[in-house]
């Protein structure tokens, strides 16, 4: 089981949950699993061609993983992904 920390702006589509549990061996598989369980969340993670939205980043093992690397980035059971709302400025 992988834990995914959900940013506040997306909690309206997770029933208020801050953390989701999911299965998968890559970041993409984990995202696909949580999208299956929360269909409204799928709109925010995947674009029309089922690609991970290009500006999404997450934190895994204390390093930032960008959208282009999420298909291949391996995750192990018991690990956590932090899905970040990557904004700057006021």
């Amino acid at each position, binding site marked *: 089981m992988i834990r995914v920390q959900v940013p506040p*702006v*997306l909690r309206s589509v997770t029933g208020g949950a801050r953390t989701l549990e999911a299965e998968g061996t890559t970041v993409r598989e984990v995202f696909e699993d949580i999208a299956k369980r929360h269909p409204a969340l799928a709109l925010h*993670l995947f674009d*029309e061609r089922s690609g991970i939205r290009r500006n999404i980043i997450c934190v895994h093992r204390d390093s930032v993983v960008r959208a282009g690397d999420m298909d291949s980035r391996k995750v192990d059971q018991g690990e956590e992904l932090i899905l970040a709302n*990557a904004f700057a400025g006021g």
Partner: protein
Amino acid sequence: MTVSLIVGTKKGAAILTSDKDRRTWKADFALKGWPVTASARDDGGRYYAAVANDVFGPAVFISDDLKEWKQLESAPRFNPGDKGNEQHIRIAGAADFMGRYKDGPRLVDQIWTLHAAHGAIYAGTSEAGLFVTRDRGKSWEPVSGFNDHPNRDKWEPGFGGLCAHTILSDPKNPNRMWVGVSSSGFFRTDDGGKTWNEKSKGVNTDLGICVHHVTHDPTEPNVLFRQDHRGVYRSDDAGDTWVVTEQGLPCGELSDGHRCSFGFAIAMDRKSRSVFIAPLEGDNFRMPHNGELAIYKSNDKGANWQPRKTGLPSNCYSGVLRGAMTTDQLDPGGVYFGTSSGSVYASSDVGESWSEVASELPRIMSVEAYAT
């Protein structure tokens, strides 16, 4: 009688509510954290608010009471195989554009307008597209005749991207609609969306066809008022031909030296048939002329315009975006607009005088009024 404003800002929606007098307003805030780009209400009284986040994309929320909002599981989306407009992709993905978006996908990155018509809700998007839901948001279908327009490959985006930002409909003729696209034209269908013809004859198109916003009275749908990048125009024949209608308006110089009345927002009160615009000082400055915020009003179909400044500030250097001015269709008509510096101004006397009813909001992107 209640009047509610959905004020879409860069960080959520201010919900302002008043009674028929429209003197005092109660404020609430919803959809915190989401840029709210447009709203609409369907015939059954359900409200729709479009949001778009640079990271997590666009979505539509619904509410039946303006208090509880729920995100729809469906949203306007292009078909997976649709090829995107390279220039739009370059603008939308500017931060990480390294040539990787050549032959890239056509993606909806923002919903610019929502429009209720004939029992459906239409959505105009960027990359420019038109979508419709006929089941209150459970599903959205692309309007293929528009999205696959035969000249689409020649469509040029404005500097804000290739966006379908204006939708108008004819209440008595479901086969006729209009869609404005920056900066590719003002399109009309007369066959229910199968084919669309560009309608800008008489408009100065020296530097492209940059329609900013169009309004009309749905009871006289073929008389159209157009705020274009290159001036203010009226059409009496459903858009087939246009004439300049700038008598009394302040004009400024555009980048290429052309002088006209630049601006974005335009709205109409149906009872009085008054038209309102918010002129800005040319495309370089995009702020009120001489720092004097003024709404210009025409009572004679655009033949003459007069400034209305009572209650509006001097030393104002913000603008009014294209979706940020609206009317409530009460009698006397209420007119409302929001600024890019977060103030909302309201008039309950058909635009003759104004009062600030909200301030210190984030940048205002859309304002719609709903009387119940």
